[in-house]
């Protein structure tokens, strides 16, 4: 069989593509199906990074398992593809070990809210300085279309072949209640809004959560006879309304029902590390060395200390009081 001919050569595609700066082009083509919404989210994420003028070396992307879990493997940042549900605790460790990083978790609804649900609410409670982007396609795509904690009531899935009888999570309400300080929702039709929202979330100090409603054409759409990707866009176009500041108790999504979207929550609260440092400064005082300084700051301090004391060892590093 002859290789198909394209207007753009393979080499040009890999180097000249406007996304080449952000993607591991050597890994293309990706695994996502035609009509899938994940690619839109990746593009919006890249656009937000570009617009924000961030140092791309200081951005890390962490994903869990599933279709959206594959994002980490395609983006040209320090990136980690972890185990199912564990992107948030991994990201927590990464951020706390190296606080100068902007750590972004991109994963799916099954990964973040089912197996990883406990981690989601605790990271929100701690106001851990992470941006979590949840691509919610109402289904486990990679394993073949099973029901998830966000599948609307009555929708069909391979494990609810007679329709879903469980009550789904309304994710903005969940993370708001758990303590998230930035909460937004969009659909994958609203690419420019997603970009803008990710930009705001990256600037936000603390736990920011963006839910993107996106179609799974191969499984969710087909099993529920909802047509293809274009039909999903039509649905989002007709039934999604911007309701900035809406009470998150009111934004649940029924089967093919109205979708409230916008920035629901944006409130200031001390991040986890700010809380750690503020608290220790209060109770320990001047002896406490602020945790999470940048390596440059640490090095400068160390050199200042060395030149003051004439030696480089930290007397507290081991030993301590015997008991």
């Amino acid at each position: 069989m002859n290789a198909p001919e394209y207007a753009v050569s393979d080499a040009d595609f890999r180097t000249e593509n406007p996304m080449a700066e952000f993607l591991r082009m050597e890994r293309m083509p990706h695994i996502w199906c035609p009509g899938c919404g994940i690619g839109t989210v990746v593009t919006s994420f890249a656009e937000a990074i570009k617009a924000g003028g961030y140092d791309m070396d200081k951005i890390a992307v962490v994903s869990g398992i599933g279709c959206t879990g594959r994002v980490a493997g395609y983006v040209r940042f320090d990136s980690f593809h972890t185990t199912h549900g564990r992107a948030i605790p991994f990201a927590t460790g990464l951020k706390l070990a190296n606080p100068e990083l902007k750590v972004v978790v991109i994963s799916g609804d099954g990964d973040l809210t089912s197996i990883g649900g406990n981690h989601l609410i605790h990271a929100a409670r701690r106001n851990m300085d992470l941006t979590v982007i949840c691509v919610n396609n109402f289904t486990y795509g990679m394993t073949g279309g099973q029901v998830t904690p966000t599948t609307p009531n009555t929708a069909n899935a391979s494990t609810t072949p007679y329709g879903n009888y469980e009550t789904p999570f309304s994710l903005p309400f969940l993370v708001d209640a758990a303590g998230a300080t930035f909460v937004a929702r969009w659909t994958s039709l609203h690419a420019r809004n997603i970009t803008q929202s990710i930009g705001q979330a990256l600037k936000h100090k603390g736990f920011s959560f963006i839910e993107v409603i996106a179609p799974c054409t191969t499984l969710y759409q087909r099993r529920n006879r909802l047509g293809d990707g274009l039909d999903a866009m039509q649905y989002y176009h007709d039934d999604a309304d911007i309701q900035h500041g809406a009470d998150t108790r009111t934004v649940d999504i029924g089967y093919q029902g109205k979708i409230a979207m916008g920035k629901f929550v944006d409130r200031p609260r001390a991040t986890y590390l700010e809380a750690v440092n503020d608290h220790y400064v209060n109770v320990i005082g001047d002896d406490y060395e602020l945790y999470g300084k940048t390596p440059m700051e640490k090095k400068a301090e160390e050199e200042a200390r060395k030149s003051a004391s004439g030696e480089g060892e930290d007397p507290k590093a081991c030993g301590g009081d015997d008991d």
Partner: protein
Amino acid sequence: MDGDHALAEGALAAGCRFFAGYPITPSTETAERFAERCPEVGGLFIQMEDEIASITANIGAVWGGQKVMTVTSGPGFSLMMETIGLACMMETPMVVADVQRVGPSTGLPTLTAQQDMMQVRWGSHGDYRIIALVPDSPQECFDLAVEAFNLSEIYRVPVFIMTDETVGHMHEKVVIPPAAEIKVVERNWYNGPKKDYRPYLYNGGKSIAPMVKAGDGYRFHSTGLTHDERGYPSLTPEDSKKVITHLIEKIDSNADKIIRTEDDGLEGADVVVVSYGITSRIAIRAVQVARKAGLKVGALRLITVWPFCEEKIRNLAPKVKAIVVPELNYGQIVLEVERCAGGKCKVISVNSCGGAVHDPEEILAAIKEGAR
């Protein structure tokens, strides 16, 4: 100080400044010590929502540039198993201590056991190797914590300290040497050209790839999927063979360098008692009494249990009448001893379901049986 506190001090001495953990009896004192000491030494302690989150946050912190440790006991150790596989697959240096208590399930939370010795070796799914050390005293908790960090950095592998409730809560004198006298192996950081960096090196375990951390501009990828040297998923049987062979051979082919044992009177012995951890200290008494009674008895203490000292047992078996293996479990490491002895001598298991250390008389009886 007690063994649990000594573990925390050993970790701090080795340069560990990050500890994500979850409380569980009888290991909690280590987490508490860390929580107390961290603000004094520029470290960070975080109590996570469960053991899964704890060990996962630790892996994240390693890739953020820290040396990390967590501590747990049986039920928490079971929860960590999947992520231990991720740590092996991502070749992440880290230290995990299991202060063993009686299981299965919630079991006897406050009583001693050595029942997780096989779980640590085989507990996560798939083929992999780890290193496991067993301290028999609070002093050794300190010393082996440092050693565990060093081995984890050299081999880019999770290293386990398989202590137990008795050692964990036993108070003894612990000598902490001056910092300058403690041998600490630092991470092997990569410093070549950025474009040439490969987070993995699959050469059948001959060498271990140097590491970088996120934020240094290498923009590398790491995954729990089978991957190539760039860290990119590569789902082929050929690459799977390369990865697994490397993970196993980097430990197996260096087993001689890793394994530490302590022996006493093996030459000319008719019976050898093979033991580890707290059980070794009980075995000493039985060996002394047997020697007084005129029996030729040797003692072999395993400080490194995994990788197992196969050669040592293979060489010993034809020269002795019997090997006696007391353990605070229903017979776990005795299976390895039997395998390596290959029928060349009797192997006598002195098992205990845990909860209390052996009575030396039980071990003595087995020695006498072996000498017949």
